[in-house]
């Protein structure tokens, strides 16, 4: 499905498409870019987009954004995702960047924004804690003022790619007497600070994406506080809004459906009754994608007219993640007996993997996709948001 594009927007789309085709690094085309690339490799595309001035579509021009319209941003998102490019690190560009230019002071903007754009700093997110999953407001990590420093103690978890990170943005409790939401501050912490320890969490697909981050008497300069003390919850919610906008994942789903079709064609003879069942299941998923895409386009058109999409993000998160889980599950089923095998990590060790190449990541993707309905606010929480904010229940 396509937006009806003006001639200018159509030209823009062609420009983006050509740029990707000509510049996306071939070494990033690995079986599973999310787990198979080194830090350096995964930054290659980031640096190319930075050089082109396209790294931060969301950012205002004065901070280094390209100055695109809502429609152009959507086109860019659609083209990069359709082409299967690895999105630049969201924690840096999409999450902490906007918080800093919206709520940070001049010194912070000057210090951090250029390094986010260039990819020099890799950011991770210090939100979740063992006791605070979907209920973020209960953060227990404490920051106590000591002269011109905060002393931070606590335990962050599910910290994505913390093993590569230079900085972590953290929700910390600065007032233990206030109501949960009112005593939280937004602190930027250098990962090289003494007292910061990263411990890998291996997930059921065998990969190392997430970590525990332990903070023990970490001294953080007061100048790393974003905005006002105890106002962190406002900034956190602002950031989470950004996190949930891009979760429909239409481009990704479309690519994986195409791959699934190839697998079904290759693995299941047309005269096998299972073939027809797969065609039917795939068609149902395609219709799910079509309906979600149409909804996304409708929302984009409304946004272009200046209408606030409100909690539409929750709808995209719910359906986008459910659809992708369905696709990975069907793909895992389509490769039949080979679904019993799984690549071992690190994949650079090149251990033997049976079956056809196109099936080699099916098991790990299927397992890894279970996280989608849990992270970024579980789908149960998203339904609560819609119940409350849209339906008024």
């Amino acid at each position: 499905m396509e937006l009806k594009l003006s001639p200018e927007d159509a030209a823009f789309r062609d420009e983006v498409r050509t740029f990707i085709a000509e510049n996306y690094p071939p070494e990033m085309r690995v079986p599973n870019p999310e787990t198979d690339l080194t830090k350096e490799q995964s930054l290659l595309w980031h640096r190319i987009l930075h050089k082109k001035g396209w790294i931060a579509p969301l950012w205002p021009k004065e901070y280094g954004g390209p100055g695109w319209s809502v429609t152009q941003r959507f086109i860019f998102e659609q083209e990069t995702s359709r082409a299967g490019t690895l999105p630049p690190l969201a924690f840096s560009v999409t999450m902490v960047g906007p918080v800093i230019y919206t709520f940070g002071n001049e010194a912070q903007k000057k210090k951090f924004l250029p390094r986010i754009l260039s990819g020099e700093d890799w950011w991770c997110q210090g939100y979740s804690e063992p006791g605070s999953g979907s209920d973020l407001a209960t953060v227990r990590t404490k920051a106590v003022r000591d002269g011109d420093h905060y002393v931070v103690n606590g335990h962050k978890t599910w910290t994505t790619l913390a093993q590569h990170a230079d900085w972590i943005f953290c929700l910390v409790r600065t007032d233990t007497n206030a109501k949960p939401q009112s005593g939280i501050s937004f602190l930027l912490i250098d990962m090289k600070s003494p007292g910061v320890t990263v411990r890998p969490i291996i997930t059921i697909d065998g990969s190392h994406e997430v970590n525990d981050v332990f903070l023990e008497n970490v001294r953080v300069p007061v100048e790393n506080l974003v905005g006002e003390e105890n106002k962190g919850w406002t900034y956190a919610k602002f950031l989470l809004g950004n996190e949930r906008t891009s979760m429909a994942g239409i481009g990704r789903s479309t690519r994986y459906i195409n791959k699934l079709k190839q697998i079904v064609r290759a693995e299941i003879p047309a005269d096998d009754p299972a073939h027809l069942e797969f065609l039917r299941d795939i068609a149902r998923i395609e219709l799910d994608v079509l309906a979600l895409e149409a909804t996304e386009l409708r929302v984009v058109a409304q946004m272009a007219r200046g209408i606030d999409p409100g909690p539409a993000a929750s709808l995209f998160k719910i359906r986008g993640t459910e659809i992708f889980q369905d696709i990975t599950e069907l793909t895992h089923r389509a490769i039949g007996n080979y679904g019993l095998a799984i690549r071992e990590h690190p994949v650079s060790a090149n251990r033997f993997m049976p079956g056809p190449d196109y099936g080699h990541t099916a098991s790990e993707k299927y397992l890894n996709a279970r996280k989608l309905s849990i992270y970024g606010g579980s789908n149960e929480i998203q339904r609560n948001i819609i119940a409350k904010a849209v339906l008024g229940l």
Partner: protein
Amino acid sequence: MDIQFTEEQELLRSSVQRLLRDQYDFEARRKIAASEEGFSRKHWDAFAELGLLAAPFSEGAGGLGGGPLSTMIVMHEFGRHLVVEPFVETVVLAGGLIEHVGTPEQQQSFIPEIIDGSKIWTLAWTERASRFDLANVTTRARREGSDYVLTGAKTMVIAAPWADCLIVSARTSGGNTDRGGVSLFVVDRRAAGIDLQGFKTIDGRRAAEVSLRDVRGQLLGAEGEGVAALEACRDRAIGALCAEAVGAIGELNSATLEYSKTRKQFGTTIGSFQVLQHRMVDMFIAHQEALSLMQHLSLSLSGGDAGLSRLASGAKSKIGYAGKFVADQAVQLHGGMGMTDELNVGHYFKRLSSINIQFGDPAFHVLRYAQLVTAA
């Protein structure tokens, strides 16, 4: 219909439970799966000593005569503990085939070594294009003197790296997907001409791609009648896998229920949220239905009932979907913890996912169920 265990069955169950409780907790299992060999000879010997490897075999074959009900009892407990040792492969698949279609000489020669734990077996039936079709066999066997010689390739053979002997399906006549013309052969895993390429499976076991070039094999069962033997073997395997699945489902439900009573979010236990209560009720119902079908199938296997194979497919499908539902929800309700390698929940998820592939997924079996009903 509720199975009242006999004294002997109760004894079997409590002794397996005790052994696993004492020696096979999740940490012990993790160490076993991560070890060089990937399974534990020590535990295998303990299983033999306890009589588990003898339980299902008839007394005539040197077993304890417990039949499919004893398999159900053992596998249900194995499912609860995520046991990786190849009981299904050795006792249910290979042992069952030897007992049902082997000659008296073959039974006398092979079964005692299964029962005493000294030999591990597995069944190699899957091929690159076979998917779940037992008759889709391109590996060839030709007669040479009193023996046969096999050439071809088998894929995704669970437990092959551990096995001393393989039962291999190979074509002695007919076209690649003909029902007739498939025969079964006993092959020494270390025989000349066999090459194994091993790897790990998603549920922490080992498997191998097996290539055969002019490998000597001994015919098991009637020449050309292998598919019928494999179908009956699959029914027995389904009985075992379903019991294992039900054991795993029960553990997931207990763990999830327990977690929902202790995990607090928004100032209260997550078990107090109605949406999660209803979810757990559905998980409970799925377990009850699966448990009932497991018993129904095991009784039918014991009685050799007519329509057994249709019931086996029905149970594999229904219990498969139940397992998938419960595993999905158990991970979801455990949140991020459910995604970790550290917690057992994800490992039950993976075992249930594997069971849903072995011998055909739930969609395959619901279709087979429908087709067999229509044919009846």
